[in-house]
């Protein structure tokens, strides 16, 4: 176990792709073990990826990209501005709300941060918002989408731990909304201190913008309603989301939309290839770990330290925060969950509760330097120095941290909704 761990670490530090580092380290062990054949690497990779439930990932990604092509982000932003723009720092609050709405339609947090940088940041700076504040807000709020279903991080967690993806989707709703509330309150306080201007409320404008956004806002209703009603499996919900996006795009853009179907599929495949390459490699690693009883050994060792569930959670969250500075979210989940989950399970930590805490830690990692992808996306797109975006993200990072603490101490925030709406945790 130590040899494999050392090889993985050395290869990771030397910038070998994470998937290859995991598989190569597993291969090194398999080659010296007379009971294992190297062909298991190929077999384990294939069989771990070849699951119907995993196909929700490419389909949700494709649906998100299809919706993004229709100029939906700008439309949602106008609707959010009409709804909450009258509050102190209303434009900032509208940015947070638009992130929540787009998060419910899918898409990527980095792409959303980049798109918001183009739409929201110029408008905020025009209205007197400091660049550091606008940049920090967009970078942090972009991550809210990870908690709001459909969430690819939660699908990955569900597949690695065999937890119901439907339960995880519903579990993310309340913490996701709490994140949004925390960010919105931070915006209001900062706007009050900086005396930033607010918009006016116009009922007619709200009605018009709602009418324009309503078709797009129907998509989360289809996804969540279908899952709740038992009409769809997560993969079918993803296919339905694609169908909805195709229909929406055809109505909104017609020929231009059809011409963009293949390039959009290519974008979705590019991202999916990155995710599934890592997932397959984790499959190889898990195969080896299971054959050598590593989860049991690690669980025995960690429980032998006498850690309480809360102690373990704090230690694990600390590791994730540290890791978040160097690797991105998907890798964080796939590298740590297979090791941490058996321990958490032995300590009787609810798998759904753990999933939400992990996702919150990943959400916060999008703004932790030096790897925080959203920092770079916003800095690059809005041409704001990265140090200013980092400075601006601090208050929102702190409010996210507060939400993480709340979820750690009050598991019910994550587990209540699925306990009401979904019956089986392990499917």
């Amino acid at each position, binding site marked *: 176990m130590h040899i494999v761990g050392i090889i993985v670490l050395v290869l990771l530090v030397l910038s070998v792709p994470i998937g290859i580092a995991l598989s190569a380290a597993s291969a090194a062990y398999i080659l010296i073990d007379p009971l294992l054949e190297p062909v298991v690497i*190929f077999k384990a990779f294939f069989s771990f990826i070849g699951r119907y439930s995993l196909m929700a990932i490419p389909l949700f990604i494709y649906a998100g990209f299809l919706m993004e092509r229709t100029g939906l982000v700008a439309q949602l932003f106008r609707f959010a501005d009409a709804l909450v723009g009258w509050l102190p720092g209303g434009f900032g609050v509208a940015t947070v709300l638009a992130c929540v709405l787009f998060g419910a339609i899918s898409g990527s947090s980095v792409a959303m941060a980049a798109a918001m940088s183009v739409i929201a940041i110029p408008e905020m700076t025009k209205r007197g918002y400091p660049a550091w504040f606008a940049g920090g807000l967009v970078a942090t709020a972009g991550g809210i989408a990870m908690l709001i279903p459909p969430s690819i991080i939660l699908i990955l967690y569900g597949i690695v731990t065999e937890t119901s993806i439907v339960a995880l989707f519903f579990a993310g709703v309340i913490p996701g909304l709490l994140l949004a509330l925390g960010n919105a309150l931070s915006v209001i306080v900062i706007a009050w201190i900086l005396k930033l201007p607010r918009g006016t409320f116009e009922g007619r404008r709200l009605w018009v913008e709602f009418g324009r956004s309503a078709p797009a806002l129907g998509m989360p209703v289809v996804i969540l309603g279908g899952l709740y009603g038992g009409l769809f499996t997560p993969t079918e919900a993803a296919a339905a989301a694609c169908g909805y996006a195709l229909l929406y795009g055809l109505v909104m853009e017609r020929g231009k939309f059809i011409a963009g179907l293949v390039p959009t599929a290519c974008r979705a495949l590019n991202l999916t290839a990155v995710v599934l*390459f890592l997932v397959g490699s984790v499959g190889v690693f898990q195969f080896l770990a299971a054959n050598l009883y590593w989860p049991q050994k690690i669980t025995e060792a960690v429980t032998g330290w006498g850690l309480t569930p809360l102690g373990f959670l704090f230690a694990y969250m600390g590791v994730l925060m540290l890791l978040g500075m160097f690797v991105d979210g998907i890798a964080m989940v796939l590298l740590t969950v297979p090791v941490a989950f058996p321990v958490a399970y032995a300590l009787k930590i609810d798998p759904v509760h753990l999933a939400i805490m992990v996702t919150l830690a990943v959400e916060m990692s999008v703004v932790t330097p030096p790897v925080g992808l959203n920092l770079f996306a916003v800095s690059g797109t809005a041409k704001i120095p990265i140090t200013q975006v980092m400075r601006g993200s601090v208050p929102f990072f702190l409010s996210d941290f507060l939400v993480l603490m709340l979820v750690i101490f009050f598991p019910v925030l994550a587990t209540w909704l699925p306990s009401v709406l979904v019956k089986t945790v392990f499917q």
Partner: protein
Amino acid sequence: MEKAYAVWRAFQEKILARAAALLLIGCTLIALLEVVRRYAFGHSFEWQQDAVTFFIVSAVFLYFGISQRHGEHLNVTVLLEALSAAGPRGRVAVEAIKLFALVVSFLFLLLVVWWGLPEVLESRHYATRTESLAFPMWPFLAALLLGFAFMAVTMLFQIWFEIQKLRGRSVPEEAPVLDRMPD
């Protein structure tokens, strides 16, 4: 070598990427059709789940090499960033480390292709099939083998370009595609 790379790039963009995209679009439509058929007509295709799963994963396998060309596969860059900030010698060290990482990855992928080949041949020989028995398994296994092989070929070009960089020559750069991290 640059001409060969241009041919390889064109093959990936014009043939592989489009074939993979069409597979994804086709499977999306099959999955949709299944939902509609089940609720509207009370029937379902017994082969639908296998078709959606294995054709989509095949499309993804074909994309491994393309993502590699764009430098999209996730890695830890902390050492590279620290060295980049350490002046010209640091930047040479960065290129040397990148070269090492590429060589290790390339050799590993070659090994996996070598180890996986008998599995594909065996699957064909014994006519193993997917769960619904609707499709033979070997073409999908072959797609994975090809995916690894194409990724290795892309890495071979990248190794060559890294060597050229270390010799102080200019090389073609591939822009990364945004959207690395899904929600």
